[in-house]
């Protein structure tokens, strides 16, 4: 079986700081992978390597079994990776349509944009997928007036619009109301139902357990444990997490040489 995306022995350091060391990570076809780990464990660095924002210091990246070198965000987006960031990666003063098409404006080979079409598609997405019904919101509305959930909706719809088949969600429930969180969890179920893959990062182990096929735990820049949700109960998973937090390993033994910087 070829993985949809695979990292082999990937390390990343920022100057003196070793953010990731020797990480192997895979996302299968139509698989939802939950990524757990403490603040600073390296989750964000890992996803930013998956989506081309950071280039690994060493290691290899494969898409559908083929190695891709010099991955950039543009390249990753063309390969079907879209990211919904914790901070949502929106431009608050700009209009809704500009945010939907941020970085991937519909344009001809000379770079001239099809503004009409972008507004039309935004209008369609607004009414069909984002549930904006109020006439006060148009494709021309600047998004600084939107609520947290609405902004999250913009970031998600943007990921879907480009027909991404690997959707990375970085702490997507942060700052959402209970109702909005439930909507988001349903949305992740929807990703799997549609035959796509996802990487789901969240602090909340309950959210991750309820949507993921597989959970990968990152600790101090390494993969500390990997579990299929079908093979482990929530209680067991929580115990493993405590163990990892204390010892750096899911087996209760300290991983050799894990002292960092």
């Amino acid at each position, binding site marked *: 079986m070829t993985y949809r995306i695979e990292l082999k022995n990937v390390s990343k350091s920022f100057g003196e700081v070793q953010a990731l060391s020797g990480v192997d990570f895979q996302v299968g076809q139509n698989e939802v992978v939950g990524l757990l780990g403490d603040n600073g464990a390296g989750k964000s660095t890992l996803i930013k390597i998956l989506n*081309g*924002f950071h280039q690994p210091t060493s290691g290899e990246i494969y898409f559908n079994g083929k190695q891709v070198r010099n991955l*950039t*965000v*543009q390249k*990753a*987006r063309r390969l079907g990776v879209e*990211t919904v*960031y914790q*901070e*949502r*990666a*929106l*431009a*608050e*003063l*700009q209009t809704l349509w*500009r945010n939907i*098409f*941020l*970085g*991937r*404006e519909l*344009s001809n080979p000379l*770079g*001239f*944009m099809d*503004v*009409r*079409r972008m*507004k*039309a*598609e*935004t*209008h*369609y*997405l607004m009414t*069909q*997928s984002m549930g904006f019904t109020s*006439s006060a919101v*148009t*494709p*021309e509305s*600047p998004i*600084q*007036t939107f609520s947290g959930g609405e902004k999250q909706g913009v970031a998600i719809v943007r990921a*879907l*619009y480009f*027909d991404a088949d690997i959707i990375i969600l970085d702490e997507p429930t942060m700052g959402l109301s209970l109702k909005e969180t439930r909507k988001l969890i349903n949305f992740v179920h*929807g990703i799997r139902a*549609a035959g*796509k893959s996802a990487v789901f990062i969240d602090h909340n182990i309950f959210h991750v357990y309820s949507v993921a096929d597989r959970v990968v735990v990152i600790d101090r820049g390494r993969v500390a444990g990997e579990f299929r949700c079908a093979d482990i109960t929530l209680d067991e998973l929580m115990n493993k997490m405590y163990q990892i937090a204390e010892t750096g390993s899911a087996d209760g033994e300290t991983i050799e040489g894990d002292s960092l910087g």
Partner: protein
Amino acid sequence: MSAMSEIEAVQPYEEQFSLARFARSNGAQLGILGVFFLLWTIFIVSAPETFLSPQIYLAFMSTIPFFAIMAMPLTVAVIAGEMDLSFTSIMAIGMVGFMMVHDATNSILLAFLAALLTGLFAGFLNGVIVVQFGIPSLVATIGTQFFWRGAVLVLSEGKNGSLLYAGESLLHPILVGKIGGVFPMQMIWLVIVTVATWVLLNKHRFGAHVYLIGDNEKSARLMGINAGRVRILVFSLVGIVSAFAGVVASMYVTYFWPSLGDGYLLRTLASVFLGGTSVFGGTGTILGTFIGAFIIGAIEAATVAIGLTGFWTQLIYGLIIVASVTMHSYLRRSLK
């Protein structure tokens, strides 16, 4: 999940006109238009002989383009969250390139291209300093302003030079001739630069990226926009257009002064900010700058025509600039 194929069938979206929405999304432009008409009314009422005759408007169209042309790419730079203080020196270094290549080749066309290339290079260099070395553009362009002015003085040995040879060439009527003996060509060039910048900013990906990096650079980079490249292009654009404005202004007097561009700095910047472009980046319009430039350009003549002494000019500039940017700031907050 919306597949692309479904999306192809989307009906064109027709925005329904709403006066409130129009006012909200064009607040800055309506604001500056209001200021413009208010001032114009004051001018006409106080000095009807001057402001009801076409002569004064032909005079405006002949002198305002020299700095208004540069205000256009400068607007783009400010929207991108950057500042450029070096363009006045780039005007002059472009002309040094012009004269050196003319001396060497005797070709006006090559000289003109050399001026543009010199400006492009100087702007590109600003961009590289800002992007590669991470120097804030306000600081970097103070440095290059001095550097290029210094280069002008060294290369020209501080001497003025007649451009009579260029005055007899075809370039002169093309840049600063008078259509039908009255209408100044530089106004046509201002309109061309204005329209081209507007198209670039509003209809081209480049312009979309300018707004995005000025608004939230981090988001733009997370979504794959090469912010550094956009910045370098923005500074290059300011450079090439400034050199062009330098040629136009020098052709007008068919004379080269090493101090070319001095005195344009604050007028050009004032046009941009008067027009409602935010110093914080992310918002701004070309139409606003266009109107702003005409307000700035008209105040001097108006002060004198109204019967005040020239001493009043700067005071009135100051009042109008402060009042206008206050209005813009208020509009931005209340039209959210």
